[in-house]
């Protein structure tokens, strides 16, 4: 394993990528299971959005879609509203073609870097065995598109506190979050295929450009920076949650037009 003739520092990229992603996973897991400090007035953490139920302590009722924590939920399930929804955006990222590249490299060592031998596998199957599940990516894309709308709604909600229109740092942070997610999702390879890439001829039958061609060109532009949007949106969603948590705990004060 890791046999190579390469003399450069090939291990830096996969190590840094693994470290960055691991930080995100640890933070997300901690926050998802904590089940508290996800609401600060009219700001809702994206890790808990859509908030289907308030938490058992009654936190988040203003944002909750279906009211109180349901009695039918078994006791062994962690009492955090995030556990109902976090799997959906996560599934989009985990089946994303960019994420696949980096976790196959950084975590599965298959291969860790170009021209570096990875883990020996007796019967390598690529994405034909269990990993055939990656083909569900386009369905997870549909969910991600829905999330963009939901998160924009949260941003919109962040413009009103007790019925009064205003704006705060939190509102801006909440609105940037779905925007970055949109750049990421609309530059996704599956979206690029569906929007026009699946066509063999963009101008048939009359020789005129169709809207789908123009859309495909724009999506291709986003797609060329897919890695950038993947990281930017991932880091921002964690920062958004961190901001809401810190405001909720009273560690920092949100600058806004309501209190100032």
């Amino acid at each position, binding site marked *: 394993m890791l046999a*190579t*003739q*390469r*003399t*450069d520092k090939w291990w830096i990229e996969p190590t840094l990528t693994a470290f960055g992603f691991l930080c995100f996973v640890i933070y997300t897991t901690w926050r998802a299971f904590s089940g508290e400090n996800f609401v600060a007035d009219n700001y809702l953490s994206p890790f808990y959005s859509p908030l289907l139920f308030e938490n058992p302590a009654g936190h988040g009722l203003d944002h909750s879609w279906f009211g109180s924590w349901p009695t039918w939920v078994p006791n062994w399930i962690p009492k955090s509203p995030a556990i109902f929804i976090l799997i959906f955006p996560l599934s989009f990222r985990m089946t994303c*073609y960019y994420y*696949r*590249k980096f976790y*196959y*490299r950084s975590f599965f060592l*298959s*291969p860790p*870097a*170009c*021209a570096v*031998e*990875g883990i020996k*596998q007796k019967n*390598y*199957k*690529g*994405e*034909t065995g269990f*990993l*055939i599940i990656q*083909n*569900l*990516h*386009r369905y997870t894309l549909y969910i991600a598109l829905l999330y963009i709308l939901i998160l924009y709604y949260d941003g919109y909600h962040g413009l009103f506190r007790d019925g009064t229109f205003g704006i705060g740092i939190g509102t801006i942070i909440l609105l940037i979050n779905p925007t970055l997610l949109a750049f990421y999702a609309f530059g996704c*390879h*599956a979206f*690029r*295929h569906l929007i026009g*890439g*699946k066509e*063999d*001829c*963009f*101008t*048939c*039958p*009359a*020789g005129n*450009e169709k809207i789908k*061609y123009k859309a495909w060109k724009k999506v291709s532009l986003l*797609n*060329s920076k*897919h890695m950038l949007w993947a990281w930017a949106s991932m880091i921002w969603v964690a920062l958004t949650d961190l901001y809401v948590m810190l405001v909720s705990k009273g560690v920092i004060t949100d600058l806004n037009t309501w209190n100032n």
Partner: protein
Amino acid sequence: MSERKFSVWKGTPEGGKLHDYSIEVDKGMVVLDVVHEIQKLHDSNLAARWNCKAGKCGSCSVEINGKPKLGCMTRLNEYGEDETITIRPIKTFPIIKDLVTDVSWNYEQNKKIAPFKPRERDADGNHRFMQRDVDRVQEFRKCIECYLCQNVCHVLRDHEKKNKFVGPRFMLRLASLEMHPLDTENRIEDIKKEYGSGMCNITRCCTDVCPEHIQITDNAIIPLKERVVDEYYDPFMKLYNKIFKKSKLRIYIIKSYLVTLR
């Protein structure tokens, strides 16, 4: 002029080893120039494949300090002055002699691919398509068949699944045929079953080493994987394709439309 150290693999299919050379080098020299210097001054038996010296024939693929590269496009100033530059043959294909490997397996893969099958000509005997419809395909035509992508692909290189995957170069060729506006052949079933699109786990090394900077993964392999998804994992898209894509009905609609225009 300065003297630099080089280490070049020499051998046969039975085995070989690195040989060290000190070569006088000049500004602007590339690795292939050094190979020629060695042949001229030190070792006339050293076998190396080359042709154009301009990065267009794809003959001089080697591994330089472990990285798959074209000898003629790799300048010596990419490396530290005290660094020994090691030149080895590409790993994935069998050695013939020294830096020359037998890449004929690739030609066999090419033969397996169903050729271009254009739709019928228009009534005036012409084939018409717009430039923007073939822009995608023209990127793939830049391929110089250096086989660096085939060499670095871990499915072929480490897992030796040459019987299960045709490799990035031929996924590129398949994409150039599948995306062509005139082509009517459907290769999707073969792309999945025969050519092994599922074996690729898109770690993008093929794109990283491509000397023509073709976006092999983003523009060829992933779009083909998505077309396989249309056909095998997305029942709604399969139905859409059955009705509208490369079907007799679609061709009939296009022809009728063109007749109406005239």
